[in-house]
């Protein structure tokens, strides 16, 4: 029996060494990320980041017309996000998407198989607000996908992105998958990047549940920005 156990543990050790355990790194920190933003932060990307999948499902429950769910629903998300960010950061500066929209879309590596895609400002060019000020750190929200029973690996692991979900079934959770980068605007480098996932169990789904989902997301971002500081 002992022999069998030791064989098993050796097997596990080999497995860990060659990396057949399927674990991802969902965050990446720059070695120079030494202090999380406190009090003040700028944020951009809010205008185009939010996407609601399964529009008819959400339209029915949120009592919004199906034609306008994308516009009204995402606007609601955006406003909630902004309001919740303001609670965490008293001095919040919201930059329009246009400041960063001209940067080419690039991928940012988090893990051997996980890449964030988004607009990343050019090296040597600082983003400016309308008054011409240069905010020191900017939270760039790349994507915020809201749907039912979504898994982030199906969106961000390049080996799985072509997987299609099997037939429609009754969903268990409303999910939010969001990717973001904390950008050092003075030195033009990504301080911290992450892909997060939230699962919210469904009982009855109303607009305040969606509000709550966004609030949880912002709190999670806030927490991760602290947790990501390089030791």
């Amino acid at each position, binding site marked *: 029996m002992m022999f069998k156990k030791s064989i098993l543990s050796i097997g596990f050790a080999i497995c860990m060494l060659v990396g057949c355990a399927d674990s991802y790194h969902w965050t990446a920190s*720059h*070695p*120079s990320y030494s202090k999380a933003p406190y009090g003040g932060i700028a944020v951009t990307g809010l205008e185009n980041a939010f996407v609601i999948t399964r529009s008819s499902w959400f339209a029915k429950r949120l009592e919004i017309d199906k034609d306008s769910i994308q516009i009204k629903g995402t606007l609601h998300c955006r406003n909630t996000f902004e309001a919740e960010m303001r609670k965490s950061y008293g001095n919040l500066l919201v930059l329009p998407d246009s400041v960063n929209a001209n940067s*080419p879309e*690039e991928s940012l590596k988090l893990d051997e198989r996980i890449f964030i895609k988004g607009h*990343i400002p*050019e*090296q*040597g*060019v600082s983003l400016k607000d309308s008054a011409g000020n240069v905010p020191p750190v900017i939270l760039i929200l790349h994507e915020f996908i809201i749907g039912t029973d979504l898994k982030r690996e199906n969106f961000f692991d390049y080996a799985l992105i072509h997987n299609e979900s099997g037939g429609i079934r009754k969903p268990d959770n409303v999910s939010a998958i969001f990717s973001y980068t904390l950008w050092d605007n*003075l*030195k*033009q*480098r990504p301080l911290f990047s992450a892909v997060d996932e939230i699962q919210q169990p469904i009982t009855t789904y109303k607009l305040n549940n969606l509000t709550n989902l966004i609030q949880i997301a912002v709190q999670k971002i806030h927490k991760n920005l602290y947790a990501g500081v390089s030791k």
Partner: protein
Amino acid sequence: MKKLLVILMLLIAWASASEVYFDSRFTLWKDATILIWSLDGNSPVNAPEFCLSLRRNNSGIGDPKCRELGEWERDSIAMRYGSWLSNNLEKGLSSYYLRARHPGMAAKIQALEDNIVLFLAPQGKNIQVAVFDETAQEPKAAGVVKANTDKIALSDDIASTFFDKRTKRRLTKEERLKQQTEPDDLYKEVPNLKAWAGFGIGYSQAHFPLTPDNWTSSHTRSRVRNYRITKDSVSLWNFIDDADPFFSLYAGLTWHGFIGVEFMYRYSNRDMKTDNADTVYQELDHWNFGQHDIGLNVLFSLTYPINPWLSITPLAFLGFQYTFYNEDIDHKSDVKTPSRAYQHRVKFEDVYKGALLGVGGQFVFKKHYGVDLRIGLSSRGRDLYEAPSPDAGAAATTIGRFTLDCFVSLGFEYHWTL
């Protein structure tokens, strides 16, 4: 005390004046072309002077050419990356974090061919230094040197810190093209079937190195009296010498570089361990046994190409063998009739069956010529699953019910792929 501290601090400051953050050993060409890139077009070193510094500090550099990299100094993409680099070049950051992301900048670096770009940017009391070549979108080496208004001293400092290494001859255009298109020496497909044949010499003994002697000494110290009597007849080593060299012939095959079989034959000559105190042996001229082992091994192996002319294949093997003993005995020519004991001497079984287990490695040179090293265990015994006979109790004891030894062997092989 204070003075000492000041001196110490000065010393530390002096020692840390030039500091290399990282250096990935870029190729420094003989007769190199160094392009000096400064952001404001106001280079802290003088290009011809820098060439002289290179020649002073590196005797192998030949006749280098140096000039300022005006085309990058005037280019907005390069300008932005340069100022970004100057802003981001910190101690402790690996080159990965200094990569040029802009495709235009990456293209510029790739188009350098075998020229070397030396980036210089003043930063307070230091000058930041970064070295680029065509092979990477990030600096190959970076660091700081102490700023100095004496341009010659500064050139010397940079040359001795970053360009003090062996040089390689610069390739011609044709050679570069050839190098780009020639196949990778280490690239090798695993052949479906690989075969080898070889011969070897080895040595086997009953006592395992690094184990207590008393595990085997009762067998190895035992002597045969009166042509047939020993303390214990379980092991053949009670009768014959265990520590002898052997000669082997073998041939094998590997499928897909992983699993293989090998047929082998071994021969060794074993002397009978007669007790010299026993006078009955006075009539004896010689008594020994030729030991023939025929076996079949299953091998598990993996091949690692080390360089174009050497590959190493560690392997493990497991197999079985049959052993036959061929008696060679004669009494002295002056003895007319040997004794009764001589006529009724010990008889070994016709055949012994055993197992082989071990590990080894094949070192294959130039794809064909192999040297093989192995260590392992081998056993010989009787078939355990004999039908029980009714008079088992009365039957004579089987000689050599279980014999174990260890071996080490060195083989010379020829390899080929099928």
